[in-house]
């Protein structure tokens, strides 16, 4: 084919689709998010088969095929398992001003990791094994963003 692009622009259609999804959290997710929103408490679920405490909570253990019926109260402190410092992000999607930390936190009493944001840390302070604590939002809506972020635990005098 001859080069038809020489004298014309390629036609591009701009998409305008917005699909207003409405996701249901289910009973387990709702109970968790209500406790977070109303009482600033973290809850996990324990598998009666393997004993793993899941956080975020799971209704069913993916390994044991058992229903995780037991609710467990977790601490609002935890251990940082791994992390990164995000320096570039989609401006509309970025939940905090750049740069911000992003990591996996295992809360006290839980066996699994929780993805969340990290803030209020010094350069070079983050490391695997660092004790961190949750900072809650003033206005809470029933989402994981009811925790604004985790920060290193600072022992007060």
């Amino acid at each position, binding site marked *: 084919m001859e080069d038809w692009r020489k004298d014309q622009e390629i036609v591009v259609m701009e998409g305008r*689709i917005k699909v207003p*999804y409405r996701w249901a959290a289910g009973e387990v997710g709702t109970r968790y998010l209500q406790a977070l929103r109303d009482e600033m408490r973290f809850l996990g679920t324990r598998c009666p088969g393997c004993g793993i405490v899941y956080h975020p909570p799971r209704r069913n253990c993916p390994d044991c095929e058992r229903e995780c019926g037991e609710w467990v109260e977790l601490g609002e402190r935890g251990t940082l398992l791994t*992390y990164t410092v*995000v320096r570039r992000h989609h401006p509309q*999607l970025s939940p905090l001003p750049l740069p911000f930390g992003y990591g996996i936190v295992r809360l006290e009493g839980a066996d699994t990791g929780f993805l969340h*944001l990290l803030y209020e840390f010094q350069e070079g302070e983050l490391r695997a094994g660092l004790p961190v604590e949750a900072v809650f939002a003033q206005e809470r809506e029933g989402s994981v963003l009811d925790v604004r972020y985790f920060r290193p635990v600072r022992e007060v005098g």
Partner: protein
Amino acid sequence: MGKRVAVVGVGMTKQRSSRPDVNGQELINEAVRAALEDAGISRRDIDAVVIGNMDHFEGINYVDTWSVDGSGALMKPIMKLTTGGTTGTTVAMAAYYHVASGLFDRVLAVGWEKNSESDTTGAIITAFDPFWDRPIFAGAVAGLALEATQYMHLTGATEEDAAYVAVRERRHALNNPFAHLHINLTIEDVMNSPYLSWPVKMGDMCPRTDGACAVVFASEDVVEEFPNKPAWILAVADRHLWAYTSDPYVNQAIENGWWFPALEWSAREVYDKVGIKDPLKEIDVAELYLPYSFAGLRYMESLGFCERGGGPDLVRSGATDMGGECPVNPSGGVMSSNAIGATGLLRVAECALQIQGRAGDRQVPDVKIALATGFGGCFWSDVLLMGREMPEKPRG
């Protein structure tokens, strides 16, 4: 039970940052025509088509039927698969299952993507859980950076170790006329490139690419009809971890000796099926889904090419370079071209070309066994082992 299956034809488009001169069906058709021509057949000889991409990268949700103009599947059985980064290897495995079942003799596998048509980060976020991941999700790069930090913590590996992988991949791509990036990077270039998400820098990451790949799979009953030497599928395996971004970092896995359980279990399964004891020595070439540089260190360990923590020394020794013990990604790999739905299938296509001795300037001499992998979002894995000799029996 079952049929033995070989790759008998391969087609790929040149991988490019943007292909506005073709729509999706036309892009697919370029690879399909090339594969059919390579196999010496027409679309009428094909019994079924398996196609894959990530729907939300193009915003087109019934690609199976929408693509029949390009894929050649008009009035044929077609099945669409979407499994994230592994889409291309999943397509290859499904085409293999079709033929191995004995129900189809000649199956065409197609993988494609036009990443230029959407916001890749926005689209990737739709692959993650709306409650536990999305509100805080910082994109694919940050997700990989979590793995990189964990790996550095566990092994003492450095950013410079990873830069060796980034440089190797781009150097190998210079031999591949189909690769998207043709840039001769140095370690300094990678180290001086800006941080996207510490410790991952621009030079450590794969590009976003438009491209397509098509592969013809044939049963042992018809393989002699084709002009190309068969590249046999020896064994395949795949494993999935749990559901959320935080799941792969659970310490129980590491305490139980598994650093990347999905890849380690899949690799162990194909090695056991084929009888591979020393993968680095017995495998002649590997085309691995390494989405960023640190993967090129850690996956060496997960694939049994070296001991835990041995990735940096292995890479620095040159064992994975062209001319080394087991060259990794002679094509330039994912860090040089990443049209996501095509990426995994390109690994399989490249392994076939290597086995057939048709890989041109990127050919590794005398390839008898080749390894292809696919990597997906929450650290799941596909693994395929391919070979020059027909297996004694079908292995699944």
